[in-house]
C-alpha cells in the first residue's frame, strides 16, 4: 500500500526538479546574456537619428537669421530666409569640418575657420569649401519645427 502511495509522489518530485532545473538555466541565461552585452557593449556607429524636433518655436526664428541646433551629436543650422522660408542644413563645413554660422549682413551661411561662404540653398559660393552643405527637410507641425534627414 505504502509503495502504491510513493510512486506518484516520486514522479511529481521528478517533474518539480526538472522544472526547477530548466527555470534555473533559463534564469541564468536571461541574466548572463544581457549582462554580458552591458559589460561588453557592441561598437555602435554615430547616432543615426533621422528626425529631430527642435526646442525652438517657428515664430522665434526671425527672417534673415539662423540658429545652430543639435542633430544627434552633430551641429546643424536652421535658417529663416529673408523671404520667410525655413531651411536646415548640416552645420559642418565641407572644407575642414568647422561649425558654420549665419551671417545676417551677407545673407549667407559662413564658416569662420577659412572664410567659406554658402548661399541659402547650402551651395558653396566662395572660399575653400569643396561642396554644398547637406540639406535637411524642415516641417512645421503646429508650433513645432521638425527637421529630418530626408522626406
Amino acid at each position, binding site marked *: 500500500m*505504502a509503495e502504491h*502511495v510513493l510512486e506518484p*509522489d516520486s514522479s511529481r*518530485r521528478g517533474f518539480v526538479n526538472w522544472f*526547477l532545473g530548466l527555470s*534555473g538555466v533559463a*534564469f541564468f541565461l536571461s*541574466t548572463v546574456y544581457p*549582462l554580458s552585452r*552591458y*559589460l561588453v*557593449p557592441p*561598437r*555602435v556607429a554615430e*547616432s543615426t537619428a533621422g528626425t529631430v524636433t527642435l526646442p525652438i518655436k517657428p515664430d522665434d526664428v526671425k527672417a534673415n537669421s539662423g540658429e545652430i541646433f*543639435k542633430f*544627434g*551629436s*552633430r*551641429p546643424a543650422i536652421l535658417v529663416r530666409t529673408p523671404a520667410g522660408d525655413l531651411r536646415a542644413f548640416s552645420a559642418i563645413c565641407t572644407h*575642414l*569640418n*568647422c*561649425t558654420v554660422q549665419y551671417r545676417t549682413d551677407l545673407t549667407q551661411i559662413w564658416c*569662420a*575657420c*577659412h*572664410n567659406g561662404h554658402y548661399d541659402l540653398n547650402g551651395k*558653396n559660393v566662395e*572660399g*575653400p569649401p*569643396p*561642396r554644398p552643405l547637406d540639406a535637411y527637410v524642415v516641417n512645421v507641425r503646429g508650433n513645432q519645427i521638425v527637421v529630418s534627414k530626408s522626406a
Partner: protein
Amino acid sequence: MAPAKAFDGDIHKAKGFGCVACHGGDANAAGMEAMDRAKGFIGVPKRQQIPQVCGRCHADAAFMKRYNPSLRVDQVAEYESSVHGSRLRQLGDPKVATCASCHPAHNIRPPSDPKSSVYPLHVADTCGRCHGDAKYMAGYKIPTDQVAKYKTSVHWKAMTDKGDLSAPTCNDCHGNHGAVPPGVSFVGNVCGQCHSLTADLFKKSVHAKVFAEMGNPGCATCHENHGIQPPGDFMLGLGDKAVCSTCHGADDKGGKTATEMRALIDSLSGETQKANAILLQANHAGMEVSQAQFDLNGAKDALVKARTAVHSYTVAPVKQEVEVGLAISSKAYARGIRAMQDLRFRRVWLTIFLVVVLALAAGLVMKIRQVDRRPTSGSPPKH
C-alpha cells in the same frame, strides 16, 4: 578624323555656323568655286592669323550677345598679354599655343561639356600636351614636371577624388587666355582667391615683406606650387619635416616662435583627442554624452582656427584660439570622466544586485532540497 566629321560635336555647328564662318569663301557656291579668295576664302589659317580669325566674332560684344550674352569678349586682348601671345607677336614663335591649341579646331566644346578639352578635369592634360613634353619644351628652359607634380597635389585630388570641379587647375592660377607665371609678389593673391583668410594673415605678417625681399614665392615657399600636399602640424616648428627649420634655428626669434606655436597646437590637438576618446568610450558603453560630443566641436573649430592663425607668425593669435579650445576640451573631458564614473557606479551596484539574487536563488534551492530530505508526514510510524 576628317574635320567635317569632328565638327558634328562643335559648339559652332550647334549655333548654326558652317565652314565659311572661319575659312571664308562663298557658302552658296557648290564645288571648288566656293573657295574663291576674292570672296574672302582664307583656307587653313596660319598660326599668326588664328587669334584674329577667332577674334572676328569673339571680340565683338554686339555679335556675341546674340549667341551667349554672358560670354567674355576679351579673350584676344587677354591672349595678347599672355606669354603665348607675346611670343607669337614679337618672335613669331611657331610652337606657342594659340586658340586652336587648347580649343581644337572643328571640335570646340564649351568648358561645361565633359568632352571638352577645357573641361576642368581635362585642363591639366590640355596644357600638359606641350608643357609636359620635355622634347617639345626643350628650347624654353622651363620645367616640364608641372602636370606630373600637380597630379600628386591636394587640388587634383579634390577635383578627381571628391569631384570638386571648382578646385584649382592650371588656368585658375595662371589665367587661361592671358596665361603667365603668377609672379613672385602675386602668389599670395592667387592662392587668396580661395584661401582668403590665410592670405590676409600672411599679407599682414612679417614673412610677406621678408619673402618678397628674398625672392621667395609667398605661399609656395612652404607649400610648393604645383605639387601642393595636404598641410599638417608636422610642417610647424623645428622638427625634421618642419618647413620653418629651412630658415630658422632653435636660437633665433622665428625658431622660438615656431616652437611655441607648435607646442600650443600640439597641446590643443592632444587634449581634444583625449576628450574625444573618452566621450567615444562612454558613448560605446551606452552612456548619453551627445551634448558633450556636440560641445567638443567648438574645440575642433578652435584647433582649425589656431592652425590658420599660424600664418600670422606670432604666438598671440594662436594662443588665443588654443585657450578657447582647451577650455572646451577640458570641460568635455570632465564630462567624459563623469560618464565613466557613473558607468562604473552602475556596474558595481549591478554586481551587488546579482550576487544578492544568485545567493537568494542558491538559498532557495538548498531550502527545497532540505525540505525534500525531511520524512514525509504521511509515512507510517515505525514499530
